[in-house]
């Protein structure tokens, strides 16, 4: 398994070594390919039993979720088992404001949804972040369920178990069409009859939604990077390493924990809003604890603290069950087995953050020295 992570990190190293212009060209090329994936429909990757565009949308959506939860769990070290709650609040805010009780345009609903979720993050976080580690996990679990139960029962506001339908879509622009590729074995042909309109958000074509989600993923990744490489990121890391020592070094730890929580919540709300506008119909069954657990698993499998790791894990955990549909029934069984195996054999996740890799590399070379340090470090 070390070979896998060495492989990824080797790529990272070689990438870093390239001259600047080369990095930019490569990055743009990679981005273009990712955007065009559903158009290209590559034979081995495409999901034959389900709409590839829709699957990719979900991959991007859950990648967004994973980035948000990564801030909470990976950076700040707060175990949140109720993240679906924020997702649900985001989705239902859009539903309520866009369909059920008002007809606000989507582009207004989404920021409002983010603000509402952010506020809920602060409201939940302020009392609970003072609480001890284990308990935080349970309280957040409780919160997630309370949200769902309220959604089920507050009929007049949320439509109860019937849910909300006719959620508005993003505004359309009808500029041009992009034909898909069709493959015959390994030969590609352009299929003019199957086109995606740029940019039309309809029920039949998921691809524009995918593009929207993917763009948001890139934006949030960028902002995440900015946050991490600043006082905020350092404060989170220090708090996670040793909260008391951090506070004694002048870090207002509680404030930063709340900030992590609220930021994660806002991203969760954004994801939920996106989900709502794609599905156009939501009901409380979409927001069960199962998803919270799935999200946590994505972050842990990816390597908590590594934003690319969690994105890859999210995409993988979403795509794999769709690709290997014949295993559909046994999906959760395999998921469970994978988690157990991971816990035993690869707890650091697929792509642990660079730090722990550096530490491990050094450890492999410096057994004596580190024993000495270890003894003194008690």
């Amino acid at each position: 398994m070390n070979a896998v992570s060495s492989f990824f990190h080797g790529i990272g190293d070689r990438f870093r070594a390239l001259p600047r212009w080369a990095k930019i060209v490569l990055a743009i090329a990679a981005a273009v390919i990712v955007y065009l994936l559903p158009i290209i429909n590559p034979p081995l990757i495409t999901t034959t039993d389900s709409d590839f565009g829709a699957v990719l949308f979900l991959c991007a959506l859950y990648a967004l979720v994973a980035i948000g939860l990564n801030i909470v769990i990976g950076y700040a070290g707060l175990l949140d088992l109720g993240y679906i709650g924020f997702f649900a609040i985001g989705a239902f805010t859009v539903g309520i404001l866009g369909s059920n009780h008002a007809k606000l345009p989507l582009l207004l609903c989404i920021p409002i949804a983010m603000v509402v979720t952010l506020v809920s993050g602060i409201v939940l976080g302020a009392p609970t972040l003072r609480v001890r580690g284990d308990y935080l996990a349970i309280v957040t679990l409780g919160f997630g369920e309370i949200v769902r139960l309220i959604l089920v029962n507050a009929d007049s506001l949320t439509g109860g178990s019937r849910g909300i339908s006719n959620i508005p879509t993003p505004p359309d622009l009808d500029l041009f069409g992009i034909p898909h590729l069709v493959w015959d074995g390994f030969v590609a042909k352009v299929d003019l009859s199957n086109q995606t309109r740029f940019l039309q958000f309809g029920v039949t074509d998921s691809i524009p939604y995918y593009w929207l989600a993917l763009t948001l993923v890139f934006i949030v990744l960028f902002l995440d990077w900015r946050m991490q490489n600043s006082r905020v990121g350092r404060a989170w890391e220090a708090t996670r390493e040793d909260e008391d020592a951090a506070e004694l070094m002048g870090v207002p730890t509680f404030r930063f924990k709340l900030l992590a929580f609220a930021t994660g919540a806002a991203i969760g709300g954004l994801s939920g809003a996106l989900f709502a506008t794609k599905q156009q119909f939501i009901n409380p069954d979409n927001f069960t604890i199962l998803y919270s657990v799935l999200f946590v698993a994505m972050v842990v499998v990816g390597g908590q603290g590594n934003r690319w790791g969690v994105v890859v894990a999210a995409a993988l955990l979403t795509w794999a069950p769709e690709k290997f549909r014949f295993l559909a029934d046994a999906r959760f069984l395999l998921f469970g087995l994978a988690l157990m195996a991971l816990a035993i054999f690869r707890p650091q996740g697929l792509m642990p953050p660079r730090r722990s890799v550096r530490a491990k590399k050094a450890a492999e070379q410096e057994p004596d020295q580190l024993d000495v340090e270890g003894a003194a470090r008690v």
Partner: protein
Amino acid sequence: MDLLLNHFWEFTITGLAFGAVYALIALGYTLVYGVLRLINFAHSEVFMWGSFAAVWVLTALGASKASGLGVVGFLVIGFAAAMVTSALVALGLEFVAYRPLRKRNSPPLIALISAIGASFVLSEAMGLRDKPFKWFGLDTDLASYVGRPREASPLPLNIDTVRLFRVFDYRVSNIDLIVLGSAIVMMVILDQFVKRSRLGRGIRAVAQDPEAAALMGVNRDRVIRLTFVIGGAMAGAAAMMYLLKIGVTRYNAGFLLGVKAFTAAVLGGIGNLRGALLGGFVLGVAESYGSAIFGSNWKDVVAFTLLVVILLFRPTGLLGESLGKARA
């Protein structure tokens, strides 16, 4: 509110009966937490497997045709089957999912991940139980056991609900009595065991300070195994009680019940055995009253709200932490 006041005792006794179920399951959570500082997510599946064991054994023995004293006999067999199975599943869980992690000194989050994975494996295995039999073409013969795996399986035991005696305006039924009675018996036995026996002392020692306990000659691994077995057995008893009250079980029956039982454990003070019992009863009754006042839809909200409120305002629970202390 009127509903509650008019049928106060009915709601109370029903609440206590469910509370007993929660209490016994809560014991498993609190014991394991006390000794390992681990939230055993998969404990709910330990319960569920126990319930299926009871159903299958009784089906195999043709319990549905029993009457009179035979019913009592099958009742006992049901309890035994459930308790033994749950204990074994719990033990298996410890060996496969948790022990390897202890050997590797894994951080607590990882143990939680393993617990979650195990929970999925156990519940899905039950939900997919027809598959392996289909391969061997045995699914029709064993249909009553493995058929329609995602649907509810009823308990094949006919117990006429006999209203026995009155508590104020409510006639307590025989089922209520069996449930509450067996629960109390289990609780007393456990309480005495932990307080008086050598093994019980070992559990308390390991919960407080594993290293010191080891230095004093307590075999930590054995204590841990014992903890899982006891917790499992209690869950098995709860499973039988649950079957008596509800009548059916299902592959995912463990989940909601597990969360509520965990709430009960926290409510009473995680790590505190008596707390788990108290928490279970309090939760059961609170839920019952809640459903009377707000409507049965809101029943589940009661449990979770209680959980959140307790953790915010009195995280040590009603009776405080005991066995050991929760970790920061």
